[in-house]
């Protein structure tokens, strides 16, 4: 065997090991969802069954958790997308001396452990309700939305910032020179340009909220989300019902992720053709936005 061959064999073995580690447990979990024993067992495989799936449907606690997760996810999207957008716009305008401090403050939640975000949110709002006597603020849904949004807003902001870097300010100047008002410029120029980013940040925000555990488990108080119900079940004991649920969740998230990816690609392709067209019409003189995009 040549030394090249040895390297190739080692690489193959390493890749097998890596992806085996990554996928092995998930595949095994998938198999246990269809096996009959009461304990999730993949080997020996006794008999094929789908009754773990039918058990799920009658599980009201899980269904309630799912419903709460969806509500909280919607709330998080409604809060984080505008906040992330505002955060990104301010970032492009803030004076450079202040930019470092501003960046430090708004990005710090991404680096803060999730449990700490949950704890600090609960403590703060508890004190707010004590002082203001506004009891409705000390509510699991509200706290979960606010707690998760502290760091999810930063994700959204980073998505918007990436898009804003390619924005050509000349378009805005032109519209203003032609007599458009500031809100009109925002509505008709900036927002359409940011539309793909609005979409991807909304999806990102929803998924991050849906699968969040560390912050939610503190902030949700007495209520439940799908993930906190799941965590409670897994800690109590392992049944193939959880495997079945996992199979379903994985199927749904995968379908969502693939749809998202496909949409994103179509958007990118459409943009590429639009750019090519613009270049032809321009007579081959790419402006700054074009230059940045290509």
């Amino acid at each position, binding site marked *: 065997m040549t030394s090249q061959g040895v390297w190739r064999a080692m690489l193959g073995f390493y890749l097998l090991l890596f992806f085996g580690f990554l996928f092995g447990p998930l595949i095994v979990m998938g198999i246990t969802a269809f096996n009959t024993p009461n304990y999730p067992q993949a*080997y020996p495989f006794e008999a094929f069954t789908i009754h773990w799936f039918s058990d799920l449907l009658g599980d009201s606690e899980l269904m309630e958790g799912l419903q709460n997760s969806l509500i909280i996810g919607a709330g998080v999207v409604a809060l984080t997308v505008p906040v992330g*957008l505002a955060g990104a716009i301010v970032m492009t305008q803030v004076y450079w001396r202040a930019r470092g401090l501003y960046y430090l*403050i708004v990005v710090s939640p991404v680096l803060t452990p999730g*449990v700490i975000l949950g704890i600090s949110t609960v403590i703060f709002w508890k004190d707010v309700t004590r002082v203001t006597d506004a009891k409705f603020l000390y509510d699991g849904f509200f706290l979960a939305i606010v707690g998760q949004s*502290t760091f999810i807003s930063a994700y959204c902001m980073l998505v918007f910032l990436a898009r804003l870097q390619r924005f050509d300010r000349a378009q805005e100047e032109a519209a203003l020179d032609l007599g458009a008002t500031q809100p009109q410029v925002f509505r008709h120029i900036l927002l359409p340009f940011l539309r793909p980013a609005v979409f991807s940040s909304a999806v990102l925000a929803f998924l991050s909220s849906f699968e969040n555990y560390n912050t939610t488990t503190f902030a949700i108080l007495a209520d439940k989300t799908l993930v906190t119900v799941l*965590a409670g079940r897994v800690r109590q004991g392992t049944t193939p019902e959880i495997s079945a649920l996992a199979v379903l969740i994985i199927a749904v*998230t995968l379908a969502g992720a693939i749809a998202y990816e496909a949409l994103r690609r179509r958007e990118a392709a459409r943009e590429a053709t639009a750019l090519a067209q613009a270049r032809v019409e321009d007579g081959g003189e790419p402006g700054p936005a074009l230059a940045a995009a290509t």
Partner: protein
Amino acid sequence: MGQRRASPCPRAGSPVIESLVKGLLFAVPFVIVAVFWILAARERRAAADPSAKSFLERNGGVMAAFLIVAVGFWAIVMIVLPQLYMVDFSFHPKLPAKDYGGPEDHYTLASYRYFIYGSTEETDSYNIVHLRAFVLTIGASIGVTFFSFWFCYPLAYFMAQSAGPARLRMLMLLLILPFWVNEILRAFAMRIMLGTSGLINNLLVGLGVLAEPIDFLGLDIGMYTGLAYAYLLLMMFPLYNAIESLDRNQIEAARDLGAPWWHIHLNVVMPFAKPGIASGCTMVFMLSAGALAAPQILGGPNSLWFTPIVYDRFYQAFNWPQGSAYALILLLTCIVFVMAVMRVFKVNLGEITR
């Protein structure tokens, strides 16, 4: 210091000092806003550009109001104030909810004393259980980070420098797919693999390799594996991004000059990929040290990870000031770690969070 006995419940502050501190706490956000304002004004004066527009002129009234309200709410009400409140609360005694703000409510170090000595008043013995859990958590997180780096580096290098575009797209997809699966479920999957009647034990016993199943979870092997499993991809992507921008010619040049392969990695690739390495290590360390799901699900009966202890302070001991103190200790440790990484790798925050 160890033998000094603290006087029971020291009356730290008079009501005047109490309200002064509370007032200062509320003032912090205003100070931040003022600092921004001053910086902005100075910059505008320094630029002396008559065409420069103010924030209000540039955005219009409605937009300016929206930006200020949204960012103000986020930065101050959602980020800064809760953190300050947590710090403040950790210095309060444990009281029934109605007594907060009452005469019993004064600043105290009781929660921190408990962390170190295992009692809110005595200082004779140390709180071995919690201190050990803390040290173990930090040490194990560093270990997990180290393992993730060495496990991911070859693949990141391969994807960035050697893989063709078709294979690269495939590998990327394969890497992203498991990342969409919930953390709890990934820990659960690991439990199915490693439990005493899990797949690996069943296989090994069935094949006659082992006479008795090994208790991977009880030995904490499950927990460490689960942590590495959960956060592997956050090491992979920063590494890949950093190595990807390295010019292949540099590697060729080093090879032509006769450098052995490990020299090339140590002296060419790794120094170049420093920001990516720093970013990946920071993310994996932070997430491991703050992990709650993997230790709760995969930890053996005797394992004590620090984050679940914090959780129990809140929802089993119902001692919120102590929980806050513990959370603050964890947060400070993480900040120290990030600053150390930034210092060692000579990178800035923007490069880490990219």
